[in-house]
């Protein structure tokens, strides 16, 4: 059963065709890798799926939280997040001057039912829901072992923990589909391994479907069930990790980068 159907989306910036006719279909519960050399267009695909960029062509069908399938083209990012797709950013975009806890609580915002008046007059509803989301936020932070830093400012966290906070924040929107853009960038091998364990954990705990961009080949090949390879905006290969690592086109695309493709 597919929850995401991407049909021929394209975009260009000035003269540069960043992504051309990208197609993708995701089945509920899958963990799919999106790889490719620098500048291949991976992040741009995320931006088109989440409404940050509007594709010049093509459609994106998504089975929303409520079960109905919607074309996402033309929707704003917040609308797409609301119906069950959430993401992290490659170049970390936390709310730097907010506490770790508040970073997560912002993401609960649209699921909160009390309104500004409740907030201003501090009604019972306000206290009840605030307590509720605080507890939930701390639970999520705990999964990633950063709950003890909940009162620190996000900008004061070390780099690796900032990446984790990005994931927690995305999880707090209660997504069906999670898009992770190089979540392990800048981490050492051990940290990366731990992070992958956590990602596996939340995937099964929250029944997530995950699309993952990652540069670390070992990692992608180890964790993903299926891999899509982009190069210069074009999909050059798609298949199981084993198929991908023996695909001559992929090897060629990566040649200059001296990345070992054998999983």
């Amino acid at each position: 059963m597919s929850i995401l159907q991407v049909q021929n989306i394209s975009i260009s910036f000035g003269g540069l065709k960043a992504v051309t006719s990208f197609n993708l279909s995701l089945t509920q519960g899958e963990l799919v890798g999106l790889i490719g050399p620098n500048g291949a267009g991976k992040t741009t695909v995320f931006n088109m799926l989440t409404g940050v960029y509007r594709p010049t062509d093509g459609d994106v069908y998504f089975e929303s939280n409520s079960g109905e399938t919607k074309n996402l083209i033309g929707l704003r990012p917040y609308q797409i997040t609301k119906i069950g797709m959430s993401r992290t950013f490659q170049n970390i975009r936390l709310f730097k001057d907010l506490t770790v806890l508040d970073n997560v609580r912002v993401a609960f915002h649209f699921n909160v039912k009390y309104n500004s008046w409740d907030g201003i007059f501090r009604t019972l509803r306000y206290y009840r829901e605030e307590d509720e989301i605080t507890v939930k936020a701390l639970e999520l932070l705990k999964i990633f072992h950063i709950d003890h830093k909940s009162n620190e400012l996000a900008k004061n966290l070390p780099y690796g923990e900032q990446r984790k906070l990005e994931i927690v924040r995305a999880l707090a929107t209660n997504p069906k589909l999670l898009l992770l853009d190089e979540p392990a960038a800048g981490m050492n091998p051990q940290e990366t391994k731990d992070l992958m364990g956590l990602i596996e954990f939340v995937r099964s705990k929250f029944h997530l479907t995950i699309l993952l961009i990652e540069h670390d080949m070992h990692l992608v090949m180890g964790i993903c069930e299926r891999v899509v390879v982009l190069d210069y905006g074009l999909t050059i290969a798609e298949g199981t990790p084993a198929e991908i690592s023996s695909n001559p086109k992929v090897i060629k695309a990566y040649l200059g980068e001296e990345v070992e493709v054998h999983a």
Partner: protein
Amino acid sequence: MIIMNKRVLTFFKIAGLILLGLLIGDALIYAGIIDEYTAQILTLAGINVIIALSLNLISGFTGQLALGHAGFMAIGAYATAYLVMHIHVPQHLWPVLVGISIIIGGIITAFFGMVIGFPTLRLKGDYLAIVTLAFAEIIRVLMINMEGITGGAAGLKGIPLYTEDINLGPVVSFTWIAVFMILIIFLIRNLIKSSPGRAIVAIREDEIAADSMGVNVFYYKMFSFTLSAFIAGIGGGLYSLFFGYLNPTMFNFMKSADFLVIVVLGGMGSIAGTVATGFILTYLQEFLRVLQDYRLVIYPLILIFIMLFKPTGLAGILEDIKTFISKKISAKAIRKTGEG
């Protein structure tokens, strides 16, 4: 339930303290211990604080620079003045009329805020700053030309004061403005510490990330800007009954800049900073000759230096001092345990 009770208790404690403070203030003014001139400055400072807070809401908390709050203040002031001058009520209903007129003045101002916010806040970029700047200038020109309502360049005379009773005058003005100021402080503080408030601050921090976390960025920018205009309009309304006279030159760009200086010096996004700086600057402005003469040269320098060297303003400096002291203390404690 125990937690709930504690919350109710703190509420009453705070409310009681504030009421007590207000009564003491009233008593001191009434008894003449705070002289009439000082009382007037305190009252004026209260108005400045209200408008500066409204500016802090949109610029400090939401991150959208607005440069025309004097224009909003003017709309509130003239609208309120018009209402209290044209509606006649029996003596005992006068305070009701005043209260309602001020609120309506705020609502009218909020409407203008919505009208200029709608085309501007949809866009990325810094259009709000220039649009509000131009808007305030246009409002000023319109005020000069709409003589029927505003009295034109000669000004609008004969606006009734909060009370005509000379002896009670300072106390009553002070109370009206203090009550509004306290209500507005709590309004903004509680809003910011709620979920919609966090959405607003998230927009300041990173618009794209906020959008991607499900925050309707345009909606909350509009909400914040409209509320900001509303509060600035209230400040204007309070001002008109305090002064009894309005003139378009009172609401020129220098006035908008005054509010900006209060917000920036106090610390953008700090309520306490704005309140403290509002009182300090209003007071200094009255008593410090240097500040009177060179205010217009000193204020812009404050803006520039704060932005270059301490963008968190006085609030940030206080915060630094606090962490410095607590570090000293904990260092001492560690040394002691080390010795023991």
